[in-house]
């Protein structure tokens, strides 16, 4: 690409304005999180005044009403556990599929590809029944459910990557007496590292924010995740406590933004790599 521009500072100024406007919705939530709920409903665009300022009260209310820290913990357990399990199992499966290339492997691959297309609504009712029936409606049980329902994308990206790995290295290892298990873990897996990062990023973005699957499968009396807690605050009937809601929204965004600041490069690379294969 040709990347010269005539007046670079004009571009910088223009984009600064656009970027600030882009961040405004988030800033608005942060500002309102310090205002009493009456004042939020009345005029969300006013800054906190001596009259409307309530300090950390909205945060305290929000956390108490939703038990948010417990939800944060369960979200972490579900996201990390499922992501690790998906990465470990599907990378093995993908390598095996590519190297075996027999009828069973091909059938598997086609099934996973099909899984990629199917929207969650298709299995939502039956899956929530089956999870309950098998007693998997807990955070560890969800690892298995997520591995099952989320396998498609992971297998797809991993097989695409494995096809590009030269076979000769593995062959040499086999001749030297290395079995398939050791070959995979000592030789193939380290080579697959970029694909592992890509899949990890895409899966974590999905798992952390997923609302419907855990909502329908988890035993909600015992476990909630962050999206479920936020939605729970709205409740079935009546008006939402906008004060508590603002506090919860800010708290829900903080971990995500921290995560983003630390792993931005990997996230963007992962998205691009995932898209090229998708």
């Amino acid at each position, binding site marked *: 690409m040709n990347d010269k521009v005539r007046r670079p500072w004009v571009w910088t100024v223009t984009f600064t304005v656009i970027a600030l406007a882009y961040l405004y919705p988030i800033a608005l939530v942060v500002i309102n999180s310090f205002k009493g709920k009456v004042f939020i409903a009345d005029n969300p665009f006013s800054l906190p005044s001596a009259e409307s300022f309530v300090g950390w009260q909205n945060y305290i209310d929000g956390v108490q009403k939703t038990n948010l820290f417990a939800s944060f913990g369960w979200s972490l357990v579900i996201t990390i556990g499922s992501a690790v399990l998906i990465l470990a199992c599907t990378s*093995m499966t993908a390598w095996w599929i590519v190297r075996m290339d027999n009828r069973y492997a091909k059938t598997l691959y086609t099934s996973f590809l099909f899984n990629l*297309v199917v*929207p969650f*609504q*298709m299995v*939502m009712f039956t899956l929530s029944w089956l999870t309950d029936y098998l007693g998997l409606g807990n955070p560890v049980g969800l690892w298995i459910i997520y591995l*099952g329902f989320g396998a498609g994308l992971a297998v797809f990206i991993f097989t695409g990557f494995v096809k590009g790995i030269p076979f000769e290295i593995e062959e040499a290892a086999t001749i030297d007496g290395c079995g398939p298990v050791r070959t995979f873990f000592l030789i193939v897996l380290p080579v697959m590292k970029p694909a592992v990062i890509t899949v990890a990023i895409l899966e974590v973005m999905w798992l952390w924010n997923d609302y419907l699957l855990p909502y329908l499968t988890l035993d909600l009396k015992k476990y909630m995740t962050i999206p479920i807690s936020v939605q729970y605050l709205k409740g079935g009937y009546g008006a939402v406590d906008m004060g508590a809601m603002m506090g919860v929204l800010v708290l829900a965004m903080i971990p995500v933004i921290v995560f983003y600041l630390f792993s931005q490069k990997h996230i963007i690379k992962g998205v691009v790599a995932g*898209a090229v294969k998708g």
Partner: protein
Amino acid sequence: MKKSLARWGWLFTGPTVAAFIIGFIVPFVLGVYLSFTEFRTVTRSTWVGLDNYAKLFGDEVFLHSLWYTAAFALVTTVLINVFAFAIAYMLVKNFRGKNIFRSVFFMPNLIGGIVLGYIWLLLLNGVLGMWARSITYDATYGFWGMVILMCWQQIGYMMVIYIAGLQSVPTELIEAAEMDGASKSRTLRSVIIPLVMPSITVCTFLTITNGFKMFDQNLALTNGAPSRLSELLALNIFNTFYGRTGFEGVGQAKAVIFLIIVAVIALVQNRFARSKEAAL
């Protein structure tokens, strides 16, 4: 090597396949079967043939949500791709701060749909409140509210993909076009766009399927109000299942139709991508 690999098949594929059967195959097969039955619970169903499907054509709420969703997917696909491409086109140029701007535009993607929905509920109701209205006043408000939300969320994601595409366009080609006297817009039209076509196909596919599948943002922002008129397909199916009993079979039939729509889009995009590969 294949021989010993075959012997270890249970280890390499076993766990994934077992989970896949529980998490996908069984629910899917049951789901297809149940769409031809009347049921309250999965284990007690009676076969009714195509009755559930026949009911769909008389279900006005469903038909409304069908075109409402199609319109939504179409509008968001066009807007997101146009804006994402335009921003990407400018952010590959060299000026101070471009990396920060990229980060800012991408960020909303990491925030979940439910949280996004409530962020925009505050802002949109605040604006509409100036005219004593709210987002649930009319389904048109809900429609454009969700369009704005969706654009805000996804422009950054598609921008990242377009930036990668634009960066792979060789500088020599653009210089050659300029040397031959091509104007900026002509270069864009005849050199750059054809070369980033793979990115355009991918982004179009992603945005159109995201539009069809959108659920969380819809639930948080309007929850279908007023009177189920701002219900997108996914929410309509959800409400058919869990709104009132006796319609589970109809809900399952709707889900099958939903799958067919999404699958057809995927097949068309696949065909597109293939034909382009052949051309290269």
